């Protein structure tokens, strides 16, 4: 993809903006003033840049594609690719959309009847319209769903449609299993509403904001239970559509859960929360049919929940869409779908499946900067979305357009350029459904989310401490380059010790011993190494943070996205004062948002526990390096000078240097510094404050063992310093292990039992 700025590109641009290449009445095309506004050649570059930035800020563009290792050591395998939003939307006039939405609703209801028949009466099979041979050959036809009667097979539905150049709309593919993309559609719209707000406001673009309400009603209607509890059942970070899931969960206001969050007991599905097991009534299933239950015949992998389908069979939980609905997507079955629809709904259908995958499609204008392979216009496939609450089918007045590269299979575009879909006009009647009873999991927090919030905060705290130490050392060198060689490199050696201490180098390879090396060189190298360590911690922070986006504010998401950018620089070894300042500003924003935007519930408590625990360890690490560091051959004034420098770094790294100077108005003294950092209850960064906070959180969580551990930690503060530090460390480490064991003892992945070896 090459950015197009001036010259010939502009001429081409003007060419179709004049309108003679496209017939004036073509659907999908903006007309008149709207066309002028959207295609304004002077605005394209700026709009594309803004769209890119907004998408990246919401983590969809790049953030998740560059995720490193998780705290548990598993690498996050993201298969999805970054995509861009083209600032020129696909525009549907109200008449076209009205027709399309009726056709989509009609098709959704027809497919509901087809699926119900394939698992029920099987008239279609008896009449050979869908041969049993085709069903038997695919694991998308779930044999154990035969005979089941869910409330509804399709609560949600998506369909890819395309307009042929000859003006005929056709279905490219039906998505009935776990229809993906609605989160992307909402996300793309939120981007566009900020890229061209004035154009949207002036042109009566139908709002898609009410659709999430319709979705909630449809999901609630998947069960007969009153006031059902709904969760979004995701495959987790490893699922290619994770951003879709994550964004949607936030919009719907439901928990995003993974297999490990759920457990089947007594024919019901339960959510593991910090307060124990809580029942779930509807799983909004974003996992494909064959993966939901590892006990199932021919199940794939072990991401699902063992026993889930037994709970479904017993009516203890409803899946939306129902188990087996994906059969419509099976390659073996697709060619029979049209005949099946005609059989169950013997009226002429408005939309039919595209028979020729190579049909010439209508082209729409694309922004030159979007990176679409054809710079002027390109064919596009529209994904439309619908939900059924049992009373009405609601079709999203919008969707996503996906640009096709030359030669693309319309079902699998390779261009990675998305377009928002605008429906013009007020003709779409706003639907005000009944308000859903607000049954929620209240303050409950899934244990996996708690786990991620805990590690997010631990990583943030450690990374911040490392960045601050690095920044102090780097700025000292910048201000006074002579320092590095001071006292025969004694200063450098001492600072290296501090870097090692805060970097906890025993765990890492970035910093290393370099016997015989010039101490200054060693320090500079370790400073770069520390930058890499900060980048590692940011990586953990991003990975864990991404899995709990729904608990973090929107602004926090933007901060994380920015940190992702900075992380790239740190990994390249760009570790100077400015770079570290930028990182520190983000950490400050992250910590501030954490404290100001999170309700003081279990989520905050568990996150803050992680933060305080890590802070306690940081203080111990730094004080240890300040008092216990080897001084080499230095004696007298030289030794004192180096010690003072170390203490100053220690204070600065804890953001306590200013407090110290205010209080003491003197050169730094070790004892006073220790008092401030270790014992001072009024210093929010002291060890004693951290321990006090741990105790309060344990108390609030009614966790007696935690309170006892915090009390033991507090007792160590009375010891002389050389005993205090190791003793406190032991107890704090113990506290950390106890948190994990008590709150997160999350199950590991299901292991398949070996199949029976039986031979005759």
């Amino acid at each position, binding site marked *: 993809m090459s950015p197009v700025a001036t010259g010939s590109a502009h001429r081409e641009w003007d060419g179709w903006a004049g309108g003679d290449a496209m017939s004036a009445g073509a659907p999908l095309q903006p007309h008149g003033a709207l066309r002028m506004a959207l295609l304004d050649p002077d605005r394209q570059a700026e709009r594309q840049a803004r769209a890119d930035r907004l998408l990246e800020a919401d983590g969809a563009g790049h953030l998740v594609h560059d995720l490193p290792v998780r705290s548990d050591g598993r690498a996050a395998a993201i298969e999805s690719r970054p995509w861009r939003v083209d600032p020129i939307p696909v525009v549907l006039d109200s008449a076209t959309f009205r027709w399309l939405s009726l056709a989509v609703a009609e098709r959704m209801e027809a497919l509901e009847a087809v699926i119900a028949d394939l698992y029920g009466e099987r008239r279609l099979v*008896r009449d050979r319209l869908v041969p049993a041979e085709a069903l038997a050959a695919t*694991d998308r036809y779930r044999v154990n769903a035969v005979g089941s009667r869910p409330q509804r097979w399709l609560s949600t539905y998506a369909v890819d449609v395309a307009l042929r150049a000859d003006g005929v709309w056709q279905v490219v593919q039906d998505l009935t299993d776990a229809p993906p993309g609605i989160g992307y559609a909402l996300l793309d719209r939120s981007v566009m509403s900020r890229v061209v707000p004035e154009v949207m406001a002036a042109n009566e673009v139908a709002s898609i904001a009410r659709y999430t309400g319709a979705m909630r009603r449809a999901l609630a209607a998947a069960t007969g239970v009153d006031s059902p509890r709904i969760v979004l059942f995701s495959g987790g970070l490893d699922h290619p559509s994770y951003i879709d899931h994550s964004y949607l969960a936030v919009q719907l206001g439901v928990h995003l859960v993974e297999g490990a969050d759920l457990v089947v007991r007594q024919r019901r599905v339960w959510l593991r929360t910090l307060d124990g097991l809580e029942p779930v009534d509807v799983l909004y299933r974003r996992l494909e049919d064959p993966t939901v239950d590892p*006990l199932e*015949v021919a199940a794939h992998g072990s991401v699902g929940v063992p026993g889930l389908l*037994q709970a479904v069979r017993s009516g203890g939980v409803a899946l939306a869409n129902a188990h087996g609905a994906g059969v419509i997507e099976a390659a073996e079955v697709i060619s029979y779908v049209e005949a099946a629809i005609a059989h169950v709904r013997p009226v002429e259908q408005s939309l039919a499946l595209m028979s020729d995958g190579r049909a010439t499609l209508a082209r729409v204008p694309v922004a030159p900067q979007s990176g679409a392979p054809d710079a002027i216009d390109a064919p596009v496939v529209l994904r439309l979305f619908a939900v059924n609450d049992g009373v009405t089918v609601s079709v999203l007045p919008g969707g996503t357009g996906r640009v096709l590269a030359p030669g693309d299979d319309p079902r699998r575009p390779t261009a990675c350029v998305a377009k928002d879909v605008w429906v013009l006009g007020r003709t779409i009647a706003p639907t005000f459904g009944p308000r859903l009873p607000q049954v929620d999991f209240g303050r409950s927090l899934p244990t996996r989310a708690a786990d991620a919030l805990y590690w997010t905060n631990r990583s943030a705290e450690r990374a911040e401490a490392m960045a601050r130490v690095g920044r102090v050392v780097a700025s000292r060198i910048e201000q006074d380059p002579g320092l590095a060689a001071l006292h025969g490199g004694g200063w450098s050696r001492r600072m290296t010790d501090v870097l090692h201490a805060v970097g906890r180098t025993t765990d890492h390879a970035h910093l290393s011993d370099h016997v015989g090396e010039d101490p200054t060189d060693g320090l500079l190298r370790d400073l770069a190494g520390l930058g890499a360590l900060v980048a590692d911690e940011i990586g953990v922070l991003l990975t864990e943070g991404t899995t709990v986006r729904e608990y973090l504010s929107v602004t926090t998401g933007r901060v994380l996205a920015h940190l992702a950018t900075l992380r790239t620089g740190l990994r390249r070894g760009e570790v100077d004062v400015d770079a570290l300042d930028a990182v520190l500003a983000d950490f400050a924003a992250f910590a501030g948002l954490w404290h100001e935007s999170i309700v003081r519930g279990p989520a905050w408590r568990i996150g803050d526990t992680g933060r305080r625990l890590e802070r306690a360890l940081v203080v111990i690490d730094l004080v240890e390096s300040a008092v216990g560091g080897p001084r080499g051959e230095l004696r007298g004034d030289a030794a004192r000078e180096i010690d003072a420098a170390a203490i100053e770094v220690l204070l600065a790294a804890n953001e306590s240097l200013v407090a110290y100077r205010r209080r003491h108005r003197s050169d730094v003294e070790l004892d006073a510094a220790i008092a401030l950092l270790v014992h001072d209850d009024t210093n929010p960064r002291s060890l004693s404050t951290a321990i006090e906070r741990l105790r309060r959180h344990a108390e609030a969580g009614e966790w007696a063992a935690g309170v006892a551990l915090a009390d033991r930690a507090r007792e160590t503060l009375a010891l002389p310093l050389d005993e205090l530090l190791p003793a406190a460390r032991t107890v704090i480490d113990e506290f950390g292990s106890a948190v994990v064991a008590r709150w997160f003892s999350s199950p*590991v992945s*299901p292991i398949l039992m070996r199949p029976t070896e*039986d*031979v005759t």
Partner: protein
Amino acid sequence: MTRRYRVVHRTAYTYGAAMTDGYTVACLVPRPTPWQRVGEASVRLDPLPSEADSFLDAFGNLVNQFGLHELHRAVTITGESTVEVDERPVPVDPTAWEAVVAQLDAARDALAVDAGFFRSPSTFVDLADLGVALRSIVERSFTPGRGIVESAAALCTDIHESFEFDPGFSDLSTPLHRVLAARRGVCQDFAHLAVGCLRSIGLAARYVSGYIETLPPPGQPRLVGADASHAWCSVWTPREGWVDFDPTNGHLPVNQHVTVAWGRDYADVTPVRGVVIGPSTSQHLDVSVDVAPV
């Protein structure tokens, strides 16, 4: 002559570490058929399960499902049943096999559902890559115009004679192409092989799991627990309906076969499967089967 058997099928898992949770699915209870009556039948879990359920699967097989939500280092699943098996008369159906294929191709109503489901490739029966190899075997028996039962019996004998039974060869994941290449295998392999041969020419074939009475060598006592579960094949015929035959032993079952379940292949009727939650560790598996005449 009707025969009575008591069948005990015990599957014992021992893990290298304690598991926190376990889920087991068992397909061990013989199903009633026109020639088979099932008396007392049970599937037990030791230790006692936290919860138990049972249901009929899409093929009408009885499936037991257990949850064991306590720490356990071992679990034993025991299926026990008493079964009466009538002597089945020799099936007769001279319909040419090509006519059977044509009838299946045009099938409507119940036949379209019941037989149609057993004509396709499935998890353990790959027809796409092995179609040619399978047809070259099946064509030796299914000569033009030959009757369906006679052809099937010939295929059964052919597999029995040209493949070697070798208990050391197979574990259950043995793909059919390895069985074809090595010309050896165990009963599951031969059942899959026969099923694949029949489906490759358009016939409907089921995989049947069950037990067979084994007789000790003359003059020696029966060894308790030395039997094993068994598998064979069933082909659809217009006159006789589903006709069983046993390619491992090269004959048609009379009254020594106890039928447990049928499906497309082993995956549909696995006797014991499940998942455990716990540290990843070793699993030791011990299976004993006893088919005793009573």
